[in-house]
């Protein structure tokens, strides 16, 4: 049996997959949900294990995704952290990049650094951009630094020296010296977190890593202990932001890699699903309570980026973390997003969310604002029996009350406002979906869209129509798909290094040498976890640009091992550049970052198939009600129970398919087919 648990903002999910080890055939799926327990996250996991009646002694594989890192960061619950850096540069962390996204607000307040100035220390040393030592490291001041750290109760020290991405020699020396002097303080150096250039981004990454290191380690240790006590044999695997899992030991040494693990596993689940149904080009949309996240998958691959920031917005610069993260666009638009009117009389939806408490007006918990969920109810798209997991019917009086101010200001009916909310929410999501597709040179018509999360299937059909994607897929268990995705992930580590050089034949040896050095590092890391070298699969990427440009395009190097194909790589880059930016140049091509992906496949079950039921699709209909499909008109619409839909069934829109965790809206233009895996596949039956 295989188990995955995923801690989310509101709920902790568990998915348990039973399968026949001989045939790989899944024999059953179990799903359990419990409240997330922020004080000790591991309690929420134990609750789901109890609720789902899972016996850990029988579990061969346990994967886990956690928000412990992002939580510690956003709630400022990490350790008191100090920084040691090159003499003359302790203010790099506070000066940051000097930008002011809130362009016209002259009374802005800059986000404060995670380490105050009195805990930012300097050591004499200097390495130049070529990696040459131009001033030797002087460790004489370390004792005094540690004395201050102890007096100030510092629990963690981050070390980041200039040009350490090129040559980490001084950082390594510092680590050795510091570990001789103390064993009470956690220490992490920049080269252990990232080998990319840009001193502010690297310093920020190191500091944030140091900040979460003690709390994450403690959590992981406790989790391991408690699972062991409950009978789990092997240590759990941990989900990372790069879409792969890794071993507990590995993640303990650099826990910042878990920062965006939740969204990553959903995307990887979609890739795994795509593989079994033969779809390699996907747009994944995950709509939750507060946000919508989307990612683009091309040829079965999702882009990994290290250009990641927390608390970054249109008005705040945010804090960068150079760790490999799946390239996701996230916007403040979910089921709980609030509709509001600005001083000029224009209606907006989000980014403020009603959350779970008080929640949308329909919850009847005192929510005074109309939300996207309420708009879906007003238009009749959610069945009252299935609202809030069927726990209670929507509070229509509360909805009517919350609509009043909007109706008055905009001089329209509740129904008109609801349709407006849905249009604006959909337009916001379309803009986000375009950011990952059209704006990057992709034509959505070549893609299949996969919608997950509680709200994905509510809006999916409208969005798919607007984007003209060929097909829309609503997988089974779409509400807990992130946990599901973890069961389908392999062990993956990303190694990225900045080493700028021009792509000419003379550099071939350097290119090969750099990759093989990175490969050695990967092999030794995997060996430390008892994996065999021959089981590691390597994939090579390079971040390329025209000489003189700053931004790069990531290019897959398919022929790296032979290295005969520099011309092919350059030609491929020209193509990619033109696709992204609409032109190509005659200029020489530079390689900026080397990117090596090392993966070890884990034994996985097949995607569970579903049996045909022998019933007719009509038997799944449980109600008939009026639903407003906006520009497609109001229709008397059949409501289907999802659990009664089985492979090979077909139905036509208008229709609504209800299940506990989500609702699929099928417009009058769509038709639905259920495939062998129980996926709902929506396609346009005719054009408008």
């Amino acid at each position, binding site marked *: 049996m295989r188990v995955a648990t995923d801690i989310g903002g509101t709920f902790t999910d568990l998915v348990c997959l039973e399968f026949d080890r001989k045939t790989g055939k899944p024999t059953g799926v179990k799903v359990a949900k419990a409240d997330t327990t922020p004080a000790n996250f591991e309690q929420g996991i134990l609750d789901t294990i109890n609720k789902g009646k899972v016996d850990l002694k029988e579990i061969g594989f346990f994967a886990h995704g956690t928000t412990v890192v992002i939580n510690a960061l956003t709630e400022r619950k990490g350790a008191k952290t100090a920084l040691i850096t090159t003499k003359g540069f302790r203010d790099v962390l506070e000066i940051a990049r000097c930008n002011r996204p809130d*362009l016209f*607000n002259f*009374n802005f307040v800059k986000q404060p650094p995670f380490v105050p100035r*009195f805990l930012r220390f300097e050591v004499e040393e200097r390495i130049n951009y070529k990696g040459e030592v131009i001033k030797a490291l002087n460790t004489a001041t370390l004792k005094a630094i540690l004395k201050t750290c102890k007096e100030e109760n510092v629990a963690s020290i981050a070390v980041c020296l200039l040009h350490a991405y090129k040559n980490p020699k001084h950082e390594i020396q510092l680590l050795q010296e510091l570990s001789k002097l103390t064993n009470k303080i956690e220490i992490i150096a920049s080269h252990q977190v990232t080998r990319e250039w840009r001193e502010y981004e690297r310093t920020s990454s190191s500091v944030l890593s140091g900040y979460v290191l003690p709390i994450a380690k403690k959590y992981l240790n406790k989790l391991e202990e408690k699972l062991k006590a409950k009978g789990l044999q092997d240590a759990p695997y941990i989900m990372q932001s790069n879409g792969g899992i890794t071993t507990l030991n590995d993640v303990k040494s650099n826990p910042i890699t878990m920062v965006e693990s939740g969204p990553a596993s959903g995307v990887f689940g979609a890739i795994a699903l795509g593989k079994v149904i033969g779809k390699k080009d996907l747009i994944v949309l995950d709509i939750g309570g507060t946000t919508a996240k989307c990612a683009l998958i091309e040829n079965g691959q999702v882009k990994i980026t290290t250009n990641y920031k927390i608390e970054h917005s249109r008005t705040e610069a945010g804090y960068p973390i150079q760790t490999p993260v799946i390239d996701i666009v996230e916007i403040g638009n979910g089921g709980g997003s609030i509709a509001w009117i600005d001083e000029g009389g224009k209606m907006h939806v989000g980014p403020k969310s009603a959350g779970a408490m008080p929640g949308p007006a329909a919850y009847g918990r005192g929510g005074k604002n109309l939300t996207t969920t309420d708009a879906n109810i007003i238009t009749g798209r959610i069945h009252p029996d299935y609202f809030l997991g069927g726990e209670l019917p929507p509070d229509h009086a509360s909805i009517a009350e919350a609509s009043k101010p909007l109706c008055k200001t905009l001089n329209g009916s509740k129904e008109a406002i609801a349709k*407006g909310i849905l249009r604006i929410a959909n337009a916001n999501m379309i803009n986000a979906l375009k950011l990952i597709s059209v704006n990057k040179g992709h034509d959505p018509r070549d893609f299949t869209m996969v919608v997950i999360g509680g709200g994905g299937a509510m809006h999916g059909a409208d969005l798919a129509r607007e984007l003209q994607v060929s097909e829309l897929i609503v997988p089974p268990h779409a509400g807990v798909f992130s946990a599901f995705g973890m069961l389908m992930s392999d062990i993956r580590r990303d190694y990225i290094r900045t080493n700028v050089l021009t792509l000419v034949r003379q550099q071939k040896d350097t290119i090969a040498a750099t990759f093989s050095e990175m490969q050695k590092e990967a092999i030794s890391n995997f060996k430390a976890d008892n994996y065999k070298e021959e089981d590691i699969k390597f994939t090579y990427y390079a971040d390329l640009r025209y000489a*003189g440009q700053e931004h790069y395009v990531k290019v897959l190097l398919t022929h790296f091992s032979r290295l005969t194909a520099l011309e092919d790589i350059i030609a491929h880059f020209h193509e990619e550049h033109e696709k992204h930016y609409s032109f190509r140049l005659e200029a020489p091509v530079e390689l900026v970052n080397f990117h090596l992906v090392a993966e070890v496949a884990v034994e996985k079950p097949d995607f569970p198939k579903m049996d045909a039921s022998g019933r007719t699709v009509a038997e799944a209909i449980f109600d008939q009600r009026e639903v407003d499909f906006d520009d497609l008109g109001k229709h008397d619409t059949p409501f289907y129970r999802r659990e009664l839909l089985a492979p090979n069934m077909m139905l036509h829109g208008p229709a609504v398919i209800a299940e506990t965790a989500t609702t699929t809206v099928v417009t009058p233009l769509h038709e639905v087919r259920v495939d062998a895996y129980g996926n709902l596949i929506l396609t346009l039956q005719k054009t408008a």
Partner: protein
Amino acid sequence: MEKFTLEIIQDTLVAAGDEMFQTLQRTSMSPIIYESLDYAVGITDAKGELLAQGNGVTAFLAALDSVVRATLEKFNGKNALEEGDVVIANTPYAGGGTHLSDVSVIYPIFYKKELIAFTVNKAHWTELGGTFPGSVSTVATEIYQEGLHFPFVKVKSKGKINEAIVDLIKANVRLPDSTLGDLFAGIAAAGVGAKRVIAIIEKYGLETFKKAKEDFLDYGERMCIEALKEIPNGVYEGTTEIEDNGFGEGPFPIKAKITITDTEFIADFNGSHPQVKGATNLAFSGLVTGCRSLFKAITTPRMDANGGAFRPMKVLCEPGTIVSAEAPSAVSVYYEVLITSIDLIWKILAPLIPDKLPAGHLRSVCATFISGMHPDTDQFYIQAEPLAGGWGASATHDGNRGQLSCGSGESYNIPIEIREMRYGIQVEQYAFHNEGGGYGEFQGGNGQYVDYKIVSDGARVTAAFLGEKTKTWGMKGGHDGSYNYFMIIRKDGTRERHSLGTNIFLEKGDVVRCVTATGGGYGNPNKRPKEQVLLDLKNGYITKKEAKEFYHI
């Protein structure tokens, strides 16, 4: 229902603006574009009314729509623009002008043969020829010394590139690859925006598009007038000065009279000093752009910019002053005059609206241009960048540290690690300084030192740091801050302090120390809580001596 469609069209236009902005950033070859983001992109209607704008810098707010209007003035009647045409312009004295380095790309959009909109961008190209590298000179006396001038010329005609212009650029600039790279990046970005505008029209129809844009402009005006009502009506006056024109002459006064009613905001600069010898002149269209950014800051800072939101604002000034300079005056350091003008209105209005405007900030771009030969690659380089410093304190918080001036915005510093590789220059320190000032109940943000060590012979520096003799201003009892200046520390230890300097020769081992000001303080220093002063001391933001002398601790 139609109302929501109009809003969606407007949001889509804003999204198209964002996309153009990113395209330009990602494809440019000039660090001043891709790091400093010294550019803006926009969409206007067929008459040049601003519909959407994406900004890196605040200072281009009037540049985009007026450059389109100036384009339409030149190309009309028989000479009208045709599908596939692209115009470039950098005339400082005409609509949208600033200095020659800022080049606009104007891209007319046609739908079924009808001109329906423009996409436009304006970006600082690192090199455009002229007497000195970087095309900026503090000792220019005529525009002819400041580089190539494109007086609204077609770089593309009916879709075909004008090779003559390309050849002309190639032959007249010091970094032709980079300059042409910027040109093509500008055209590509405008093209991306044009595609999106066409897609909107194809989806919603031309009539709906036109209605949406009118609605959007009216909305901007409404938002702006609502905000204007919050500012006390009255007539307010003030004076400031440009300390030096690069020839040791000065100071030159700038005067402003601001009239505020519930529906109007008039900035009258009549009576300012006549245009000066030297490059510290601002053309009228630059003055308008400066006034717009301050006006936006006090009215609709968070709203997506559009032309309607500027309808209530008027700028008045007779021609030929230091803030309304005419041909052929030199203007390459216009940005210092622009920021001084913004700072003047800021200082006049801050006491009225302390929730929107803090005490005085560094008030200079502190732009430096260091050029020379790279010690390892032996290639010619120009390092051009704005510098960060301290901002003023306000009624609610201490001044920010490490921020670029109000003329910048979503602009970034150049990372040390990238800079050292690209230019070979070595950075010795990048740190806050203790040059004093800014004391108050809320303390002004510290200015900073950046030390550049020159590692190959024959380098040169051009820079303009206004505020070398005038401190940043404090407010409501808060002390003034400190000065901007740069200093050459020669190998032998001699020090030369400068405010404006052009083409100063540097030898291997010399250090250029850039010093940016500490911002002004707010409120009486006696009201600052003791524990806050002690924390500042612990952090080294102030010295023991300062704590004792100004906070009595």
